[in-house]
């Protein structure tokens, strides 16, 4: 699967993308990341296989359709059939090459990074989209895995915030308030890590300042009213004595 990455043509294309189309070459980074596991990671290699599986499924359907159409033309009139043969061949082959490279590019430009405070997802070749979400703001975590993904032993972890989700919320990774880590092999590990962070924070993740008061409450559990009460007890006892 890495064969394409090593090929000269692909490397040349990559160089063009980096130089003229300003595709970032380096993985993303988060400032002040923290201690553990700040190194960016990519989807598993199996994710590429998964993408290619769907690509071949789609291509097979299209190719069969085109072939059936061409055979029909051949039966009707073989001269027209021969004339359109080059077009048919181009239609069959060109999208395959383009899509094949596009899949590899999509794979190569997808990056995830998780620090102990936030996660960042970068994806896209023409339109590069980077989203940053702190664990504090995550509302829920979903892990989805279809039968084909299960065969490739990968899954998708989706984190959702309370941000603005558009009507296209059904689409994977398209809704604006979601961050999807697609094609990871250690989905449950990532989920547990995020859930742990969510439990630690104990706030609702809606920008509330509750945590400040909670911290204050933890630091000093005596309220002014209690002080007054204590003073009164003191006075009372002093009077009895």
């Amino acid at each position, binding site marked *: 699967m890495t064969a394409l990455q090593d090929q000269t043509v692909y490397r040349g294309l990559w160089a063009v993308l980096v130089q003229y189309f300003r595709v970032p070459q380096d993985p993303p980074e988060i400032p002040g990341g923290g201690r553990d596991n700040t190194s960016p990671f990519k989807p598993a290699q199996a994710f590429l296989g998964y993408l290619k599986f769907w690509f071949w499924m789609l291509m097979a359907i299209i190719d069969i359709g085109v072939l059936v159409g061409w055979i029909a033309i051949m039966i009707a009139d073989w001269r027209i059939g021969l004339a359109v043969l080059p077009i048919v061949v181009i239609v069959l082959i060109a999208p395959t090459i383009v899509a094949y490279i596009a899949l590899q590019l999509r794979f190569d430009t997808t990056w995830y990074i998780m620090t102990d405070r936030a996660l960042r997802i970068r994806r896209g070749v023409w339109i590069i989209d980077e989203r940053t979400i*702190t664990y504090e703001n995550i509302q829920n975590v979903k892990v989805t895995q279809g039968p084909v993904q299960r065969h490739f032993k990968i899954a998708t972890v989706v984190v959702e915030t309370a941000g603005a989700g558009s009507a296209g919320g059904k689409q994977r990774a398209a809704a604006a308030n979601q961050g999807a880590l697609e094609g990871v092999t250690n989905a449950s590990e990532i989920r547990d890590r995020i859930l742990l962070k969510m439990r630690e924070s104990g706030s609702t993740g809606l920008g509330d300042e509750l945590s400040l008061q909670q*911290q204050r409450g933890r630091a000093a559990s005596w309220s002014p009213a209690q002080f007054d009460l204590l003073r009164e007890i003191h006075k009372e006892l002093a009077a009895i004595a």
Partner: protein
Amino acid sequence: MNSIQSFDPAATTRPDDSLLSYYILVAAMTLIGFPFVVLPLYFKFRTLSFRFDDKGVSMSWGILFKREIYLTYRRIQDIHVTRNLFHRWFGLASVSIQTASGSAGAEMTIEGIRNPEALRDYLYAQMRGAQDDALEAIAESSPNEAQTAGDIATQLLRDVLDEVKRLRVMLEQRS
């Protein structure tokens, strides 16, 4: 490309001039629609202004219909940095900030900032959860508050204890 200068919030009040070039290019992509697309974009560019203060950011634009958005850093839910091809050529990006207001799109889309990574990192640092802000806030506002409150309580309790002891001794003597 990796030279990320730090973002200066106070100095950033106007978009970069390259935003106008970007807008003209975007309008040119529509071919015949050019005059209709470029005029609103031009006026948006002319009137667009930002104000970053220590709690939040405001952005305003418009000539006929004026708009001003203000949001606080603490309420940011997530930050998107989207760069299309033209953005990348001009070194710009569109930085979308989402809050939990429930609207369909991003609440604020900041365009025309050179060095968008620095802006993003600045916003990220102000965002909830990026730092241990609660503890820091206590430490800043009243460094010894928790300590003194605990001390007062302890001292009062000790006084109460002493009084009760004296009372007990007196009662014992009387009986």
